[in-house]
Protein backbone atom coordinates (compact mmCIF):
# COMPACT_ATOMS: atom_id res chain seq x y z
CA UNK A 1 0.00 0.00 0.00
CA UNK A 2 2.93 2.23 0.84
CA UNK A 3 4.19 1.88 -2.71
CA UNK A 4 0.97 3.29 -4.05
CA UNK A 5 0.93 6.32 -1.81
CA UNK A 6 4.53 7.07 -2.69
CA UNK A 7 3.87 7.25 -6.42
CA UNK A 8 4.28 10.60 -8.09
CA UNK A 9 1.16 12.72 -8.45
CA UNK A 10 1.43 12.32 -12.18
CA UNK A 11 1.37 8.56 -11.95
CA UNK A 12 -1.44 8.62 -9.44
CA UNK A 13 -3.57 10.70 -11.75
CA UNK A 14 -2.87 8.49 -14.73
CA UNK A 15 -3.51 5.47 -12.56
CA UNK A 16 -6.83 6.78 -11.33
CA UNK A 17 -8.04 7.59 -14.80
CA UNK A 18 -6.94 4.25 -16.15
CA UNK A 19 -8.57 2.32 -13.33
CA UNK A 20 -11.84 4.19 -13.82
CA UNK A 21 -11.69 3.66 -17.54
CA UNK A 22 -10.84 0.00 -17.32
CA UNK A 23 -13.56 -0.70 -14.77
CA UNK A 24 -16.17 1.17 -16.78
CA UNK A 25 -15.11 -0.48 -19.99
CA UNK A 26 -15.05 -3.84 -18.31
CA UNK A 27 -18.56 -3.42 -17.01
CA UNK A 28 -19.84 -2.09 -20.31
CA UNK A 29 -18.08 -4.68 -22.39
CA UNK A 30 -19.20 -7.45 -20.12
CA UNK A 31 -22.79 -6.44 -20.63
CA UNK A 32 -22.52 -5.93 -24.36
CA UNK A 33 -20.58 -9.13 -24.93
CA UNK A 34 -22.97 -11.19 -22.84
CA UNK A 35 -26.03 -9.89 -24.60
CA UNK A 36 -24.41 -10.24 -28.01
CA UNK A 37 -23.40 -13.81 -27.40
CA UNK A 38 -26.89 -14.50 -26.20
CA UNK A 39 -28.20 -13.02 -29.41
CA UNK A 40 -25.88 -15.08 -31.57
CA UNK A 41 -27.13 -18.05 -29.68
CA UNK A 42 -30.75 -17.14 -30.18
CA UNK A 43 -30.21 -16.20 -33.81
CA UNK A 44 -28.79 -19.62 -34.58
CA UNK A 45 -31.71 -21.33 -32.92
CA UNK A 46 -34.25 -19.15 -34.64
CA UNK A 47 -32.68 -19.71 -38.01
CA UNK A 48 -32.53 -23.44 -37.51
CA UNK A 49 -36.10 -23.55 -36.29
CA UNK A 50 -37.37 -21.57 -39.20
CA UNK A 51 -35.62 -23.65 -41.79
CA UNK A 52 -36.56 -26.85 -40.06
CA UNK A 53 -40.17 -25.92 -39.84
CA UNK A 54 -40.36 -24.61 -43.38
CA UNK A 55 -38.88 -27.73 -44.89
CA UNK A 56 -40.69 -29.91 -42.45
CA UNK A 57 -44.02 -28.63 -43.63
CA UNK A 58 -43.24 -29.89 -47.09
CA UNK A 59 -43.16 -33.38 -45.72
CA UNK A 60 -46.70 -33.10 -44.46
CA UNK A 61 -48.26 -34.47 -47.59
CA UNK A 62 -45.78 -37.31 -48.00
CA UNK A 63 -46.49 -38.21 -44.40
CA UNK A 64 -50.19 -38.03 -44.92
CA UNK A 65 -50.01 -40.28 -47.99
CA UNK A 66 -47.36 -42.43 -46.37
CA UNK A 67 -44.90 -41.80 -49.13
CA UNK A 68 -41.33 -42.11 -47.76
CA UNK A 69 -39.69 -41.50 -51.14
CA UNK A 70 -41.53 -38.24 -51.51
CA UNK A 71 -40.63 -37.31 -47.98
CA UNK A 72 -37.02 -38.04 -48.65
CA UNK A 73 -36.99 -35.74 -51.63
CA UNK A 74 -38.66 -32.98 -49.65
CA UNK A 75 -35.94 -33.12 -47.11
CA UNK A 76 -33.37 -32.35 -49.77
CA UNK A 77 -33.06 -28.65 -48.93
CA UNK A 78 -32.14 -29.58 -45.39
CA UNK A 79 -29.61 -32.11 -46.50
CA UNK A 80 -28.08 -29.46 -48.70
CA UNK A 81 -27.27 -27.33 -45.68
CA UNK A 82 -23.74 -28.12 -44.66
CA UNK A 83 -24.24 -27.59 -40.96
CA UNK A 84 -27.08 -30.13 -40.81
CA UNK A 85 -25.84 -33.49 -39.70
CA UNK A 86 -29.06 -35.42 -39.05
CA UNK A 87 -32.67 -35.11 -40.01
CA UNK A 88 -35.29 -37.44 -38.56
CA UNK A 89 -38.83 -37.51 -39.56
CA UNK A 90 -41.43 -39.07 -37.30
CA UNK A 91 -45.02 -39.85 -37.99
CA UNK A 92 -47.88 -39.33 -35.63
CA UNK A 93 -47.20 -42.59 -33.93
CA UNK A 94 -43.61 -41.35 -33.25
CA UNK A 95 -42.16 -43.97 -35.41
CA UNK A 96 -39.30 -43.15 -37.62
CA UNK A 97 -40.64 -42.41 -41.06
CA UNK A 98 -37.54 -41.24 -42.85
CA UNK A 99 -34.17 -40.08 -41.92
CA UNK A 100 -31.01 -38.67 -43.18
CA UNK A 101 -27.75 -38.82 -41.39
CA UNK A 102 -24.50 -37.31 -42.44
CA UNK A 103 -22.33 -39.01 -40.03
CA UNK A 104 -21.72 -41.20 -37.19
CA UNK A 105 -24.49 -41.20 -34.73
CA UNK A 106 -27.63 -42.96 -35.71
CA UNK A 107 -28.97 -42.82 -32.23
CA UNK A 108 -32.62 -42.09 -32.42
CA UNK A 109 -33.46 -39.21 -30.20
CA UNK A 110 -36.42 -39.12 -27.90
CA UNK A 111 -39.32 -37.55 -29.63
CA UNK A 112 -40.49 -34.39 -28.06
CA UNK A 113 -44.07 -33.63 -28.88
CA UNK A 114 -43.64 -29.98 -28.12
CA UNK A 115 -41.62 -27.64 -30.19
CA UNK A 116 -38.21 -27.87 -28.67
CA UNK A 117 -34.78 -26.51 -29.49
CA UNK A 118 -31.57 -26.38 -27.67
CA UNK A 119 -27.88 -26.07 -28.27
CA UNK A 120 -26.12 -28.90 -26.55
CA UNK A 121 -22.65 -30.40 -26.93
CA UNK A 122 -21.81 -28.22 -29.91
CA UNK A 123 -24.97 -29.12 -31.82
CA UNK A 124 -28.32 -27.48 -32.34
CA UNK A 125 -31.16 -29.87 -31.68
CA UNK A 126 -34.50 -28.84 -33.05
CA UNK A 127 -37.90 -30.58 -32.92
CA UNK A 128 -40.68 -29.04 -34.96
CA UNK A 129 -44.16 -30.28 -35.68
CA UNK A 130 -45.04 -31.02 -39.29
CA UNK A 131 -48.21 -29.16 -40.00
CA UNK A 132 -50.34 -28.62 -43.05
CA UNK A 133 -53.40 -26.44 -42.98
CA UNK A 134 -53.76 -26.69 -39.25
CA UNK A 135 -53.37 -30.44 -39.01
CA UNK A 136 -50.36 -32.10 -37.56
CA UNK A 137 -48.89 -35.00 -39.42
CA UNK A 138 -45.69 -35.66 -37.62
CA UNK A 139 -42.48 -34.31 -36.09
CA UNK A 140 -39.24 -33.39 -37.67
CA UNK A 141 -35.95 -33.34 -35.83
CA UNK A 142 -32.88 -31.64 -37.09
CA UNK A 143 -29.44 -31.76 -35.64
CA UNK A 144 -26.96 -29.18 -36.85
CA UNK A 145 -23.43 -28.28 -35.97
CA UNK A 146 -23.00 -25.22 -33.80
CA UNK A 147 -19.42 -24.81 -34.90
CA UNK A 148 -20.23 -21.65 -36.72
CA UNK A 149 -21.56 -20.21 -33.52
CA UNK A 150 -18.36 -20.99 -31.72
CA UNK A 151 -16.36 -19.40 -34.46
CA UNK A 152 -18.62 -16.39 -34.47
CA UNK A 153 -18.29 -15.97 -30.74
CA UNK A 154 -14.55 -16.35 -30.94
CA UNK A 155 -14.19 -13.71 -33.59
CA UNK A 156 -16.49 -11.45 -31.71
CA UNK A 157 -14.57 -11.79 -28.48
CA UNK A 158 -11.33 -11.21 -30.32
CA UNK A 159 -12.49 -8.02 -31.92
CA UNK A 160 -14.08 -6.84 -28.70
CA UNK A 161 -10.83 -7.53 -26.89
CA UNK A 162 -8.90 -5.64 -29.46
CA UNK A 163 -11.30 -2.73 -29.25
CA UNK A 164 -11.09 -2.78 -25.48
CA UNK A 165 -7.34 -2.68 -25.56
CA UNK A 166 -7.31 0.20 -28.00
CA UNK A 167 -9.77 2.10 -25.85
CA UNK A 168 -7.66 1.57 -22.74
CA UNK A 169 -4.54 2.71 -24.54
CA UNK A 170 -6.37 5.71 -25.84
CA UNK A 171 -7.60 6.50 -22.34
CA UNK A 172 -4.05 6.12 -21.05
CA UNK A 173 -2.65 8.45 -23.65
CA UNK A 174 -5.33 11.04 -23.01
CA UNK A 175 -4.79 10.72 -19.27
CA UNK A 176 -1.08 11.10 -19.71
CA UNK A 177 -1.58 14.19 -21.78
CA UNK A 178 -4.24 15.82 -19.65
CA UNK A 179 -2.94 14.99 -16.17
CA UNK A 180 -0.46 17.76 -16.67
CA UNK A 181 -3.19 20.29 -15.96
CA UNK A 182 -3.30 19.12 -12.39
CA UNK A 183 0.09 17.66 -11.77
CA UNK A 184 2.27 20.32 -13.37
CA UNK A 185 1.40 23.16 -11.02
CA UNK A 186 1.76 20.82 -8.05
CA UNK A 187 5.10 19.47 -9.19
CA UNK A 188 6.37 22.96 -9.91
CA UNK A 189 5.38 24.03 -6.43
CA UNK A 190 7.10 21.02 -4.93
CA UNK A 191 10.25 21.73 -6.89
CA UNK A 192 10.29 25.37 -5.77
CA UNK A 193 9.77 24.32 -2.18
CA UNK A 194 12.64 21.89 -2.47
CA UNK A 195 14.91 24.59 -3.90
CA UNK A 196 14.04 27.00 -1.14
CA UNK A 197 14.74 24.45 1.55
CA UNK A 198 18.15 23.79 0.18
CA UNK A 199 21.41 25.53 1.02
CA UNK A 200 21.15 28.45 -1.39
CA UNK A 201 17.82 29.61 -0.15
CA UNK A 202 16.56 32.43 -2.28
CA UNK A 203 13.47 33.76 -0.66
CA UNK A 204 12.81 36.26 -3.37
CA UNK A 205 11.45 33.71 -5.82
CA UNK A 206 7.73 33.64 -6.41
CA UNK A 207 5.63 31.08 -8.22
CA UNK A 208 3.24 32.06 -10.96
CA UNK A 209 -0.36 31.17 -10.35
CA UNK A 210 -1.68 28.68 -12.90
CA UNK A 211 -5.34 29.44 -12.39
CA UNK A 212 -8.00 30.37 -9.88
CA UNK A 213 -8.77 26.97 -8.45
CA UNK A 214 -7.66 25.46 -5.16
CA UNK A 215 -4.17 25.01 -6.55
CA UNK A 216 -4.14 28.68 -7.31
CA UNK A 217 -5.02 29.32 -3.69
CA UNK A 218 -2.19 27.06 -2.67
CA UNK A 219 0.16 29.12 -4.81
CA UNK A 220 -1.11 32.33 -3.31
CA UNK A 221 -0.56 30.93 0.16
CA UNK A 222 2.92 29.80 -0.77
CA UNK A 223 3.90 33.16 -2.19
CA UNK A 224 2.49 34.84 0.87
CA UNK A 225 4.61 32.62 3.10
CA UNK A 226 7.69 33.40 1.06
CA UNK A 227 6.99 37.12 1.40
CA UNK A 228 6.69 36.71 5.12
CA UNK A 229 9.86 34.71 5.36
CA UNK A 230 11.68 37.24 3.28
CA UNK A 231 10.38 40.03 5.41
CA UNK A 232 11.36 38.26 8.60
CA UNK A 233 14.76 37.48 7.14
CA UNK A 234 15.30 41.14 6.37
CA UNK A 235 14.10 42.14 9.80
CA UNK A 236 16.40 39.59 11.34
CA UNK A 237 19.35 40.86 9.37
CA UNK A 238 18.56 44.41 10.19
CA UNK A 239 18.11 43.57 13.82
CA UNK A 240 21.42 41.73 13.81
CA UNK A 241 23.14 44.69 12.23
CA UNK A 242 21.61 47.04 14.76
CA UNK A 243 22.67 44.77 17.57
CA UNK A 244 26.17 44.52 16.25
CA UNK A 245 26.40 48.23 15.85
CA UNK A 246 24.97 48.83 19.27
CA UNK A 247 27.33 46.36 20.89
CA UNK A 248 30.29 47.85 19.13
CA UNK A 249 29.43 51.42 19.93
CA UNK A 250 28.42 50.59 23.48
CA UNK A 251 31.63 48.75 24.20
CA UNK A 252 33.57 51.54 22.61
CA UNK A 253 31.84 54.30 24.53
CA UNK A 254 31.98 52.32 27.75
CA UNK A 255 35.68 51.73 27.40
CA UNK A 256 36.70 55.32 26.75
CA UNK A 257 36.12 56.63 30.28
CA UNK A 258 37.76 53.49 31.63
CA UNK A 259 40.89 54.29 29.73
CA UNK A 260 40.84 57.79 31.13
CA UNK A 261 40.47 56.51 34.70
CA UNK A 262 43.35 54.09 34.30
CA UNK A 263 45.58 56.73 32.74
CA UNK A 264 44.83 59.30 35.40
CA UNK A 265 45.45 56.80 38.18
CA UNK A 266 48.80 56.03 36.59
CA UNK A 267 49.69 59.68 36.38
CA UNK A 268 48.76 60.28 40.04
CA UNK A 269 50.98 57.39 41.05
CA UNK A 270 53.80 58.71 38.93
CA UNK A 271 53.50 62.31 40.00
CA UNK A 272 53.23 61.48 43.69
CA UNK A 273 56.13 59.07 43.49
CA UNK A 274 58.34 60.78 46.07
CA UNK A 275 55.63 61.25 48.67
CA UNK A 276 53.09 58.55 48.05
CA UNK A 277 52.17 56.30 50.95
CA UNK A 278 52.04 52.54 50.44
CA UNK A 279 48.31 52.52 51.15
CA UNK A 280 47.61 55.14 48.51
CA UNK A 281 49.80 53.33 46.03
CA UNK A 282 47.94 50.12 46.69
CA UNK A 283 44.63 51.88 46.30
CA UNK A 284 45.63 53.36 42.99
CA UNK A 285 46.78 49.97 41.82
CA UNK A 286 43.52 48.38 42.89
CA UNK A 287 41.75 51.09 40.95
CA UNK A 288 43.67 50.18 37.84
CA UNK A 289 43.05 46.49 38.28
CA UNK A 290 39.32 47.07 38.62
CA UNK A 291 39.42 49.14 35.48
CA UNK A 292 41.17 46.32 33.68
CA UNK A 293 38.55 43.92 34.94
CA UNK A 294 35.77 46.07 33.63
CA UNK A 295 37.56 46.33 30.32
CA UNK A 296 37.69 42.54 30.17
CA UNK A 297 34.02 42.30 31.04
CA UNK A 298 33.09 44.68 28.30
CA UNK A 299 35.13 42.66 25.83
CA UNK A 300 33.57 39.48 27.09
CA UNK A 301 30.07 40.81 26.72
CA UNK A 302 30.80 42.16 23.28
CA UNK A 303 32.19 38.81 22.26
CA UNK A 304 29.28 36.97 23.77
CA UNK A 305 26.77 39.07 21.92
CA UNK A 306 28.58 38.76 18.64
CA UNK A 307 29.41 35.11 18.68
CA UNK A 308 27.61 32.96 16.24
CA UNK A 309 26.81 35.72 13.87
CA UNK A 310 30.18 35.83 12.27
CA UNK A 311 30.27 32.44 10.72
CA UNK A 312 27.66 30.42 8.99
CA UNK A 313 29.63 28.30 6.56
CA UNK A 314 31.63 25.25 7.39
CA UNK A 315 35.18 24.70 6.28
CA UNK A 316 37.55 21.79 6.47
CA UNK A 317 39.18 21.69 9.87
CA UNK A 318 41.98 19.48 11.10
CA UNK A 319 41.01 19.34 14.76
CA UNK A 320 44.37 18.05 15.90
CA UNK A 321 46.24 20.88 14.18
CA UNK A 322 43.77 23.49 15.39
CA UNK A 323 44.03 22.41 19.00
CA UNK A 324 47.82 22.32 18.95
CA UNK A 325 47.88 25.85 17.54
CA UNK A 326 45.55 27.00 20.32
CA UNK A 327 47.77 25.44 22.95
CA UNK A 328 50.72 27.32 21.52
CA UNK A 329 48.79 30.59 21.57
CA UNK A 330 47.78 30.01 25.17
CA UNK A 331 51.38 29.14 26.07
CA UNK A 332 50.84 27.13 29.21
CA UNK A 333 53.43 27.65 31.91
CA UNK A 334 56.58 25.55 31.81
CA UNK A 335 56.12 22.18 33.39
CA UNK A 336 52.49 21.88 32.44
CA UNK A 337 51.80 19.04 30.05
CA UNK A 338 49.04 19.48 27.52
CA UNK A 339 48.37 16.47 25.36
CA UNK A 340 46.06 15.87 22.43
CA UNK A 341 44.54 12.42 22.19
CA UNK A 342 44.28 10.27 19.07
CA UNK A 343 41.35 10.05 16.75
CA UNK A 344 40.97 13.77 16.22
CA UNK A 345 38.81 14.22 13.16
CA UNK A 346 39.43 16.14 9.99
CA UNK A 347 35.99 17.35 9.01
CA UNK A 348 33.82 20.15 7.74
CA UNK A 349 32.68 22.37 10.57
CA UNK A 350 32.42 25.97 11.73
CA UNK A 351 36.00 26.61 12.60
CA UNK A 352 35.77 29.81 14.60
CA UNK A 353 33.12 28.47 16.93
CA UNK A 354 34.93 25.25 17.64
CA UNK A 355 38.09 27.24 18.26
CA UNK A 356 36.29 29.46 20.75
CA UNK A 357 35.03 26.46 22.67
CA UNK A 358 38.42 24.81 22.94
CA UNK A 359 40.11 28.10 23.67
CA UNK A 360 37.85 28.76 26.62
CA UNK A 361 37.99 25.24 28.02
CA UNK A 362 41.75 24.83 27.73
CA UNK A 363 42.40 28.35 29.00
CA UNK A 364 40.19 27.63 32.01
CA UNK A 365 42.03 24.40 32.67
CA UNK A 366 45.30 26.28 32.78
CA UNK A 367 44.00 29.32 34.64
CA UNK A 368 42.33 27.45 37.48
CA UNK A 369 45.02 24.87 37.96
CA UNK A 370 46.46 24.69 41.45
CA UNK A 371 49.84 23.13 40.59
CA UNK A 372 50.79 24.44 37.16
CA UNK A 373 54.40 23.25 37.31
CA UNK A 374 53.35 19.64 37.46
CA UNK A 375 49.88 19.75 36.04
CA UNK A 376 48.62 17.96 33.00
CA UNK A 377 45.75 18.63 30.65
CA UNK A 378 44.41 16.14 28.18
CA UNK A 379 42.30 17.04 25.15
CA UNK A 380 40.54 14.15 23.47
CA UNK A 381 37.64 12.95 21.37
CA UNK A 382 35.25 10.01 21.26
CA UNK A 383 33.28 9.30 18.12
CA UNK A 384 29.59 8.67 18.78
CA UNK A 385 27.07 7.44 16.19
CA UNK A 386 25.70 10.80 15.30
CA UNK A 387 28.10 13.28 16.84
CA UNK A 388 31.58 13.83 18.19
CA UNK A 389 32.19 14.00 21.90
CA UNK A 390 35.21 16.12 22.82
CA UNK A 391 36.65 16.52 26.28
CA UNK A 392 39.19 18.64 28.10
CA UNK A 393 40.48 16.92 31.19
CA UNK A 394 42.73 18.41 33.85
CA UNK A 395 44.17 17.30 37.16
CA UNK A 396 43.52 20.59 38.90
CA UNK A 397 41.54 21.31 42.04
CA UNK A 398 38.30 19.91 40.69
CA UNK A 399 34.81 21.33 41.08
CA UNK A 400 32.36 20.45 43.83
CA UNK A 401 29.33 18.68 42.30
CA UNK A 402 27.20 21.32 44.05
CA UNK A 403 28.51 23.90 41.59
CA UNK A 404 28.44 21.83 38.41
CA UNK A 405 25.38 23.59 37.05
CA UNK A 406 26.33 27.05 38.26
CA UNK A 407 29.64 27.29 36.51
CA UNK A 408 27.97 27.44 33.13
CA UNK A 409 25.95 30.51 34.01
CA UNK A 410 26.94 33.98 33.06
CA UNK A 411 29.25 35.91 35.35
CA UNK A 412 29.76 32.94 37.63
CA UNK A 413 33.23 32.35 38.97
CA UNK A 414 34.24 29.92 41.64
CA UNK A 415 37.61 31.34 42.70
CA UNK A 416 37.52 34.72 44.40
CA UNK A 417 38.04 37.33 41.76
CA UNK A 418 41.16 38.65 43.34
CA UNK A 419 42.82 35.26 43.18
CA UNK A 420 42.00 34.45 39.58
CA UNK A 421 41.10 37.25 37.25
CA UNK A 422 38.13 36.04 35.29
CA UNK A 423 35.11 37.53 33.61
CA UNK A 424 32.92 34.56 34.44
CA UNK A 425 31.75 34.54 30.87
CA UNK A 426 33.94 31.85 29.34
CA UNK A 427 31.77 28.83 30.12
CA UNK A 428 28.53 30.61 29.32
CA UNK A 429 30.07 31.42 25.97
CA UNK A 430 31.00 27.77 25.51
CA UNK A 431 27.45 26.76 26.42
CA UNK A 432 25.97 29.18 23.94
CA UNK A 433 28.24 28.04 21.13
CA UNK A 434 27.75 24.33 21.77
CA UNK A 435 24.00 24.50 22.22
CA UNK A 436 23.62 26.54 19.07
CA UNK A 437 25.19 23.66 17.18
CA UNK A 438 22.71 21.29 18.77
CA UNK A 439 25.17 19.85 21.28
CA UNK A 440 25.47 19.57 25.03
CA UNK A 441 28.17 20.53 27.47
CA UNK A 442 28.69 19.12 30.96
CA UNK A 443 31.36 18.52 33.52
CA UNK A 444 32.45 15.51 35.55
CA UNK A 445 34.44 16.38 38.59
CA UNK A 446 35.00 15.96 42.34
CA UNK A 447 36.93 18.22 44.67
CA UNK A 448 40.62 17.28 44.50
CA UNK A 449 40.03 14.94 41.55
CA UNK A 450 40.52 17.32 38.65
CA UNK A 451 37.78 18.06 36.16
CA UNK A 452 36.74 16.82 32.78
CA UNK A 453 34.61 19.06 30.62
CA UNK A 454 32.71 17.23 27.88
CA UNK A 455 30.87 18.67 24.90
CA UNK A 456 29.20 17.19 21.87
CA UNK A 457 29.65 18.65 18.43
CA UNK A 458 27.98 17.79 15.13
CA UNK A 459 29.91 15.89 12.49
CA UNK A 460 28.44 18.17 9.86
CA UNK A 461 27.70 21.88 10.21
CA UNK A 462 24.11 22.67 10.97
CA UNK A 463 22.24 24.21 8.05
CA UNK A 464 21.00 27.66 8.64
CA UNK A 465 19.87 30.56 6.47
CA UNK A 466 22.30 33.31 5.67
CA UNK A 467 23.43 35.23 8.72
CA UNK A 468 24.75 38.73 8.67
CA UNK A 469 28.49 39.07 8.99
CA UNK A 470 29.05 41.44 11.88
CA UNK A 471 31.29 44.51 12.13
CA UNK A 472 34.91 44.18 13.05
CA UNK A 473 35.89 45.83 16.29
CA UNK A 474 39.36 47.17 16.74
CA UNK A 475 40.12 44.19 18.89
CA UNK A 476 39.14 41.82 16.10
Amino acid at each position, binding site marked *: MRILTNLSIRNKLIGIILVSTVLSLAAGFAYVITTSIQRFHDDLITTTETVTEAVGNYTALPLAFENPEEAHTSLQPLRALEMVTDVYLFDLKNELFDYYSKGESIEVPEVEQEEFSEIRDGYVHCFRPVVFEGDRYGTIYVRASAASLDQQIQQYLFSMGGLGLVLVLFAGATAYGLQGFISSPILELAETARQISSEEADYSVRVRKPGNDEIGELYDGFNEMLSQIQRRQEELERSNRDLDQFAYVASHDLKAPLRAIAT*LAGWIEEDLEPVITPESREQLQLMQSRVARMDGLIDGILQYSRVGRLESEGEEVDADEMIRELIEVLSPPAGMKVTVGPGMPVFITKRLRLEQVFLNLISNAIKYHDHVETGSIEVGVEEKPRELQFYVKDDGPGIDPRHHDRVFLMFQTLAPRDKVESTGLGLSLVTKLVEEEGGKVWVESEVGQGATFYFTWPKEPKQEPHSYVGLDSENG
Partner: protein
Amino acid sequence: MRVMRGNKPLLLVEDDEVDVLTVRRALRDLRVANELMVAGDGEEALTILRDPERPRPALILLDLNMPRMNGLEFLRAAREEEVARGIPIVVLTTSRQDQDIFEGFDLNVAGYMVKPVDYRKFVEVMQAIDLYWTLSELPR
Protein backbone atom coordinates in the same frame (compact mmCIF):
# COMPACT_ATOMS: atom_id res chain seq x y z
CA MET B 1 70.46 72.27 25.24
CA ARG B 2 69.44 71.69 21.72
CA VAL B 3 69.46 74.51 19.24
CA MET B 4 65.87 75.58 18.72
CA ARG B 5 64.76 76.07 15.24
CA GLY B 6 61.59 77.67 16.25
CA ASN B 7 59.59 78.48 19.28
CA LYS B 8 56.22 78.45 17.76
CA PRO B 9 53.26 77.12 19.70
CA LEU B 10 51.39 73.92 18.95
CA LEU B 11 47.65 74.01 18.52
CA LEU B 12 45.67 71.14 20.01
CA VAL B 13 42.05 70.95 18.92
CA GLU B 14 40.47 68.54 21.38
CA ASP B 15 37.41 68.55 23.63
CA ASP B 16 38.18 65.70 26.04
CA GLU B 17 40.07 66.93 29.09
CA VAL B 18 41.89 63.71 29.71
CA ASP B 19 43.07 63.57 26.12
CA VAL B 20 44.37 67.12 26.47
CA LEU B 21 46.23 66.11 29.61
CA THR B 22 47.67 63.15 27.77
CA VAL B 23 49.11 65.28 25.01
CA ARG B 24 50.50 67.78 27.53
CA ARG B 25 52.13 65.01 29.46
CA ALA B 26 53.51 63.39 26.33
CA LEU B 27 55.08 66.65 25.28
CA ARG B 28 56.51 67.11 28.76
CA ASP B 29 57.96 63.63 28.76
CA LEU B 30 59.48 64.28 25.37
CA ARG B 31 60.95 67.43 26.84
CA VAL B 32 59.29 69.62 24.29
CA ALA B 33 59.20 73.25 25.36
CA ASN B 34 56.79 74.69 22.85
CA GLU B 35 53.63 76.22 24.20
CA LEU B 36 50.46 74.20 23.77
CA MET B 37 47.38 76.12 22.72
CA VAL B 38 44.13 74.28 23.25
CA ALA B 39 40.88 74.80 21.37
CA GLY B 40 37.78 72.92 22.54
CA ASP B 41 36.29 72.53 19.09
CA GLY B 42 36.65 73.54 15.46
CA GLU B 43 35.07 76.96 15.91
CA GLU B 44 37.47 77.91 18.66
CA ALA B 45 40.38 76.69 16.56
CA LEU B 46 39.32 78.78 13.59
CA THR B 47 39.03 81.82 15.82
CA ILE B 48 42.58 81.30 17.07
CA LEU B 49 43.89 80.80 13.55
CA ARG B 50 42.12 83.83 12.15
CA ASP B 51 43.47 86.13 14.86
CA PRO B 52 46.43 88.01 13.43
CA GLU B 53 47.58 88.93 16.96
CA ARG B 54 48.25 85.36 17.86
CA PRO B 55 51.28 83.47 16.53
CA ARG B 56 50.79 80.85 13.85
CA PRO B 57 51.19 77.40 15.31
CA ALA B 58 53.94 75.13 14.04
CA LEU B 59 51.63 72.14 14.16
CA ILE B 60 47.95 71.36 14.61
CA LEU B 61 46.86 68.28 16.51
CA LEU B 62 43.27 67.65 15.56
CA ASP B 63 40.71 65.43 17.25
CA LEU B 64 37.87 64.27 15.02
CA ASN B 65 35.01 63.88 17.48
CA MET B 66 34.11 67.26 18.86
CA PRO B 67 30.90 69.13 19.54
CA ARG B 68 29.74 72.10 17.50
CA MET B 69 32.24 71.66 14.70
CA ASN B 70 34.00 68.32 14.39
CA GLY B 71 37.41 67.60 12.89
CA LEU B 72 36.25 67.03 9.35
CA GLU B 73 34.25 70.22 9.21
CA PHE B 74 37.16 72.15 10.66
CA LEU B 75 39.48 70.81 7.97
CA ARG B 76 37.15 71.88 5.21
CA ALA B 77 36.56 75.30 6.70
CA ALA B 78 40.24 75.83 7.35
CA ARG B 79 41.12 74.97 3.78
CA GLU B 80 38.45 77.28 2.46
CA GLU B 81 39.57 80.15 4.64
CA GLU B 82 43.20 79.27 4.02
CA VAL B 83 44.05 79.96 7.63
CA ALA B 84 45.95 76.74 8.06
CA ARG B 85 48.10 77.08 4.95
CA GLY B 86 51.50 75.51 5.43
CA ILE B 87 50.75 74.18 8.87
CA PRO B 88 51.02 70.39 9.11
CA ILE B 89 48.02 68.74 10.70
CA VAL B 90 48.13 65.52 12.67
CA VAL B 91 44.74 63.87 13.01
CA LEU B 92 43.93 62.05 16.23
CA THR B 93 41.49 59.22 15.55
CA THR B 94 39.81 56.82 17.91
CA SER B 95 39.75 53.98 15.43
CA ARG B 96 41.69 52.80 12.44
CA GLN B 97 38.57 52.96 10.34
CA ASP B 98 38.61 56.73 10.24
CA GLN B 99 42.03 56.59 8.68
CA ASP B 100 40.55 55.04 5.60
CA ILE B 101 38.12 57.88 5.26
CA PHE B 102 40.89 60.36 5.46
CA GLU B 103 42.98 58.68 2.85
CA GLY B 104 40.54 60.07 0.40
CA PHE B 105 40.94 63.58 1.57
CA ASP B 106 43.75 65.64 0.33
CA LEU B 107 43.44 68.06 3.16
CA ASN B 108 46.94 68.75 4.20
CA VAL B 109 46.88 65.95 6.71
CA ALA B 110 50.44 65.14 7.61
CA GLY B 111 49.86 62.18 9.85
CA TYR B 112 47.53 60.05 11.95
CA MET B 113 47.59 58.96 15.50
CA VAL B 114 45.25 56.53 17.15
CA LYS B 115 44.08 57.48 20.60
CA PRO B 116 45.00 56.74 23.33
CA VAL B 117 48.07 58.77 22.62
CA ASP B 118 50.96 56.41 22.90
CA TYR B 119 54.17 58.26 23.65
CA ARG B 120 56.28 56.25 21.26
CA LYS B 121 53.75 56.67 18.51
CA PHE B 122 53.64 60.35 19.25
CA VAL B 123 57.34 60.68 18.73
CA GLU B 124 57.30 58.54 15.61
CA VAL B 125 54.66 60.68 13.99
CA MET B 126 56.46 63.83 14.94
CA GLN B 127 59.64 62.54 13.43
CA ALA B 128 57.83 61.47 10.33
CA ILE B 129 56.66 64.97 9.67
CA ASP B 130 60.08 66.27 10.40
CA LEU B 131 58.73 68.64 12.90
CA TYR B 132 60.36 67.20 15.90
CA TRP B 133 63.30 69.36 15.18
CA THR B 134 61.20 72.45 15.18
CA LEU B 135 59.92 71.62 18.59
CA SER B 136 61.92 73.35 21.21
CA GLU B 137 63.34 71.46 24.10
CA LEU B 138 62.87 72.09 27.76
CA PRO B 139 65.93 72.65 29.90
CA ARG B 140 66.83 69.53 31.87
